[in-house]
């Protein structure tokens, strides 16, 4: 088991290497210049050129890339060009926000998404199934930023139930205010996930319910609830866990938009800020972190696999 995980982690190294080269290239392909952004609109061309030289941006791309790699090798992600702070500390400050948001969103998503899927499958082709599928379709297709704005208008402005924006850290206000500041964005973020997961779970459950071993369970005299919860559910989880990895990755991606709408100071906003300012080290560093997160998520999914499906076991 441990060896298997270490192997997967080492396989991640070339993946991240290629990924970071791509991020680097893409950033430099973007028109615009961080030196201009730093110097301000009124700066003379000479001043801009000077800043450019200071930052080392006048050197060939390949040199810049190799230099970045050599710093990475010793764990140095570099200094942000615009924030006057290291990339590590900038990310470190904002990571708890995004992690909290993703966590709360996941906690909302899993029971509702999987639950709806199971219910729809069990009563397939009934009105329950039809409604669940309509809701799932809405969840998948409604854009998060639009639902987010409407939600703020209604729940925060009209009803005043939740703060419209901002984030209260766990360490400051305790669980209550922390959750209050997150529940709205988390639910909006979860809508897509719930729809996606409900559809996947439904089709997986339908497959399982048609299997011979379900008939075997019924032939033993097992009641309907046990048939579903014991015999069908774990088999349903096998394909669901597979897409769960994708869902989690989407959760991180979705947070970029949602953090913007709800003014949450998380990684998503940091990236947007970095891209707008052409803050190369910042964007490269955070993107690398995202890449790493995806790899870890996928390893987690593989581990969950071995728990759910006895046919998959690390040697």
């Amino acid at each position, binding site marked *: 088991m441990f060896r298997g995980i270490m192997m997967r982690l080492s396989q991640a190294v070339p993946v991240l290497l290629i990924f970071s080269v791509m991020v680097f290239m893409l950033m430099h392909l973007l028109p615009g210049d961080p030196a201009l952004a730093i110097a301000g609109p009124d700066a003379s061309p000479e001043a801009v050129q000077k800043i450019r030289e200071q930052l080392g941006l006048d050197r060939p791309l390949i040199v810049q890339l190799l230099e970045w790699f050599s710093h990475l090798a010793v764990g140095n992600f570099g200094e942000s060009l615009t924030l006057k702070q290291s990339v590590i500390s900038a990310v470190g400050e904002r990571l708890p926000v995004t992690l909290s948001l993703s966590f709360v969103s996941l906690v909302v998503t899993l029971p509702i998404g999987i639950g709806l899927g199971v219910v729809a499958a069990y009563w397939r082709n009934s009105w329950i199934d039809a409604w669940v599928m309509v809701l799932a379709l809405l969840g998948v297709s409604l854009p998060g930023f639009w639902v987010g704005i409407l939600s703020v208008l209604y729940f925060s402005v009209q009803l005043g139930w939740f703060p419209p924006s901002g984030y209260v850290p766990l360490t400051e206000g305790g669980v209550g205010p922390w959750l209050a500041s997150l529940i709205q964005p988390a639910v909006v973020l979860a809508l897509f996930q719930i729809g996606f997961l409900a559809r996947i779970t439904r089709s997986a459950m339908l497959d399982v319910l048609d299997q*011979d*071993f379900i008939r075997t369970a*019924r032939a033993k*005299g097992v009641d309907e609830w046990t048939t579903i919860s014991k015999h069908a559910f774990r088999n349903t989880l096998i394909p669901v866990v597979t897409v769960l990895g994708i869902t989690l990755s989407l959760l991180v991606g979705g947070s970029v938009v949602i953090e913007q709408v709800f003014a949450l100071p998380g990684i998503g906003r940091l990236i947007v800020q970095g891209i707008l300012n052409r803050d190369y080290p910042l964007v490269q560093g955070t993107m690398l972190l995202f890449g790493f997160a995806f790899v870890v998520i996928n390893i987690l999914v593989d581990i969950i696999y071995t728990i759910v*499906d*006895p*046919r998959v076991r690390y040697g």
Partner: protein
Amino acid sequence: MAVPLLEVDDLTVRFRTDAGWMTAVDRVSLAVGEGEALGIVGESGSGKSVTALSILRLHAAATTRMPTGKIHYGGKDLLTLPTREMRQIRGGEIAMIFQDPMSSLNPVLTIADQIGESLRLHQGVDQATARKRAIELLDLVRIPDAARRVDEYPHRLSGGMRQRVMIAIAIACRPKLLIADEPTTALDVTIQAQILDLLRDLQRELGMSVILITHDMGVIAEFARRVMVMYAGRVVETAPVGQMFRRPVHPYTEGLLTAIPKLDVDVRRLPTIAGSIPDPTAVIPGCRYSPRCPQVQESCRRDSPALLPAGPEREARCPPRVAAMAKETVA
């Protein structure tokens, strides 16, 4: 036969298909005595499996209309029994094993759990006792190294072993009746013989009645005392096994018997029954076998034949042949 253990009376099962309702089982009646082995033979699509599934009400609920007729068991009608009581019958008094052992066991549960579940449900034993009994049952179905095997998952076992596990599950609560739906079809020939031997021994030891469904006449000859032949959803002939092999009444039974390859005769081509089983949604006037029957008469295409008595314990759905037989007996 005194009072039969199970008596199926005029069972009719209809399915919904894209082409409309079709009758998969058409007024089938059968009886199984205590400790008796009844064989049901027929081609795929003859309705034999559906008949078996309907006894335990395991047919697909979404596409099947509730079967009509009566299934008498222990003074009750299984077709109208409340679900709760039906669940006590399933696995407790009437157990079933299926065709494909590769897919009939749950891949994420251990053997101990899957055998033990029946015991816990029907006999209320605790987990530890259930596991102990599971090992005994694995021994009984001749799985070597049962104490180790019991904690394994189905994917570690071969097809033959899995079918043994299915049998262990089925006999766990000492059912009075075992329905075996093509239990050897998916297995290779040597394993088939072992499984049949096992079933026969268990039947004797436990005194169960068995309904064995198959399309293999050889299996019937070895296993059953009485046989029922089905064609296109109807019973066409019932007879004691020996008599059916010696002297089949219905031309379809005759066709099935001539289609068995004989080891001592060198043939280039196996005899077959011309044509194929009719589309279940098709309406065939008269005898359903008439389009394929080599001895078809004018009346066969016109009148729907009844199941007629053709000697002691024998019935056949072929008026011309039954009449011919009667004449012979008189003469």
